[in-house]
């Protein structure tokens, strides 16, 4: 009770509201901070109301953690906006900025946005992005956490390593060798994906 009075005295607001806001903020963060799986529509529906409530009562509570735009945008939309703007400016694209933005999305748990930016940059010929795309899909390196994809995809890994190698990025060669070793081993077990991938090497 003494603690409540102290808080009340400092903020001039009901502490229960503040606690509620923190809880609501945390819930929103949990739902929004990662966009793996099929939950995309839920936070989009819930978020606007939650944010409005938060802002009506105390904007400061969630400020700096998560922005209104971030909450409202479906996974991938922020990246698409960025891409739209970069395309409007035309090539050559600022790949360093794109990669930095993608990494920022990734560290914030916006995996779809990160993936789309890496994909965009890789598609436009940026070797670092190609390697990033490849490693995210490489069955020998795959990690489900911090990855939009639920499972590795050897064909994607092969495609991006190969393109990086064709652009002269030599470290991709060792990765391809590794991928080939994986495919040889797995095909022995009847892994069809691995057997099909092997056709690309032989």
């Amino acid at each position, binding site marked *: 009770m003494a603690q409540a009075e102290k808080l009340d005295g400092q903020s001039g607001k009901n502490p229960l509201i503040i606690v509620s806001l923190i809880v609501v903020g945390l819930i929103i963060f949990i739902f929004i901070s990662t966009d793996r799986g099929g939950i995309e529509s839920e936070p989009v529906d819930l978020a606007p109301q939650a944010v409005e409530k938060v802002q009506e009562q105390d904007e400061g509570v969630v400020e700096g953690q998560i922005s209104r735009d971030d909450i409202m945008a*479906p996974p991938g939309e922020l990246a698409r906006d960025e891409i739209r703007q970069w395309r409007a400016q035309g090539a050559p694209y600022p790949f360093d900025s794109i990669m930095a933005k993608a990494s920022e999305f990734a560290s914030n748990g916006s995996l*779809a946005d990160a993936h789309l930016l890496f994909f965009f940059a890789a*598609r436009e010929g940026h070797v670092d992005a190609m390697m990033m795309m490849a490693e995210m899909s490489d069955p020998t390196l795959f990690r489900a956490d911090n990855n939009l994809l639920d499972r590795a995809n050897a*064909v994607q890994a092969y495609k991006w390593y190969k393109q990086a190698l064709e652009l002269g990025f030599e470290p991709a060669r060792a990765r391809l060798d590794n991928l080939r070793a994986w495919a040889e*081993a797995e095909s022995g*077990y*009847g892994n*069809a994906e691995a057997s099909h991938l092997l056709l690309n090497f032989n």
Partner: protein
Amino acid sequence: MIRMLCRLLLVSLSLMTGSAWSADKPLLMEGKRTLFQRVLTVPDARIHEQPNAQSNSQSAVPFSVYYVYQRSNDWLQVGFDSFGRIDGWIPQSSTIVWNQALTVSFRDPQETQRVLMFDNKDALQKLVEDYDQEAYARLYQQAVKNEPVKDTPVIAIQPEAHVDIRENFYLVPIKRHEDVYLGNEQARMLQIASVPLDSGNGRPAGRAGAGKPREAKEHSEYRSGIHFVIDSTVSMGPYIDRTREAVRKVYNSIAQQGLVNKVNFGLTAYRDNVDAAPGLDYLTRTFVTLEQGADQERFFSLVNTLEPSEVSSRDYREDAYAGIKAAIENTNWADFDARYIVLITDAGPREHHDSLGATRLSGKALRQLAYDKGISIWVLHLRAESPAADHDRAEKLYRQLSYYPGIGDFYYSVEMLDREHEVFGNVGEAGNTIDLYQRKVSGAVNEFGTVLEVLANQITQQVLATSNGVLPIPIPEQNAQVAAEEAVPQQLVQLQSKVERLGNALRMQYLQREAGKPLPKVFDAWMIDRDFSDPARSAVDVRVLLTRDQLSDLKTVMQQVLDLAEEGVLTPSGFLNDLKSLAASVSRDPSSVAGSISRGGGNLAEMGYMREYIEDLPYTGEVMNLSLTSWEEWSAKEQIEFMHRLESKINYYQALHDHTDLWVTPGGGPVNGNSVFPVVLNLLP
């Protein structure tokens, strides 16, 4: 005069082309715009110059694919390609109609049961509807052992040796197919045509490399050796008592049958790469040898010293293969007539490409190592809850590791819900019982103890069978002859595949021989495309014979869709319209595209992307039939996954197209647009 010469020239030309180039195109299949009628030749078929039996003729390679150019009474004018080259006439009775071009390829019999072929549909259908595994297993054993059985519905069995269709092209044409359920799995009953191989003239029945009958021995002298291989890493800490319980359960079960003096127990513990995690202390350590394990007190006192490591290994995988290899190699198995390794673990193994693995063996190689010594591997997989666990991968690998040809796998899993040992689980589907050949599927049970009970009982039954002189698993004879055979396994396999092929036909081990009656040239039979004892496994792949031109067309069209999808992932709003615009240019029938667009056709097939050569096949295309109307509402992840699925298929089409060594040209000659390859149905878009 000049006019006359011209006429003469024209007549001559028309006569010449009449024999070799009588028509531009083969006959179309009914209702099709681009698909031609095709037939296969049966063994001993002959291609004649004229449609009469007296005309000059030459033999046709059995199961050759021909296009039909003309029909005249009961004769077909045929050619190897669809470009107008005619090869001659063949009696219709010497052909099998094969318009859909569906064929079967068999899986390696070391990975799954050999397929039984039934002489009538009803017999198979009854087994399928009743899901009568016991009856099927009985028929299977009779067929494998080549036992003469009166009134058996089984007409033939898949060849014993594996013939890889990619290396040795063969056809097992499908004439009819029906969707059914086998247990809970969707399956297909297939009517196939095949060519018999007289099993009486072939190699003796039984698996190649399997042991000879052992020397006469009193039943009472038969002994079993059971060696436990235990994961003793830190993650097993909470379950180490459970592991001891498992060992004790097996022991007690055998003791209750009064068989203890016929069984020796051993135990090897394993951890992981000690260089990567030095605190692990050891990679493998034998706590009890089989010799020591003859004495109960000694065995359990040594087992009680088993403790989990105090430090974590590098990741969630552990080197189970090292433990098994140690148990295989460091144990004197020679004194035991039945040999078992029981692996108990909560983690997946390190495969041979894993830099932290010590054995550098694949699971398949390790299994072979055990198999060569007559050891069967059993796995008790404790599926502990952990975000880092890779249980599905581990299950797959352990099922393969514990698979015994002709019997099934010996994999058992238990869900470990928390660290308070509140457990429940289910019985692995191996369920091999009394004579090891009879498989039994137990219903789901919700106790660790029950799973253990099943495992212990089944091992006990094995021991009991052994003590009664029935060796459940043959032990290969280690003599010079076998060693010599092992030295040339590749040549042997090649020789076997030659014996088992006749032209393009794969010859089935024919079982219904009647004295004095010749074998049929060709026979029809019904089979199921799933492993009857484990319906989750495919026993065969259903394939469609595509020409290289068709595959090229498929690749080109799908690549255009992929290009749009890539852009559609970055800018979803225009994707559907772009797709519809493209459809008009790639469709076989632009007018129907316009109709489908106005009706709001939602998937690629409806939009006009479906190709005629795949549209009637018995498969559901995951790409073709997926509605794309709500593309803009899909999550980015769903869009990306769709794109990846499509791209994986395209990559396969391209790689296959470029591998000219995989293509077969009917009638011989260099690879061209009419060359064929049997593509697995589920790889179609």
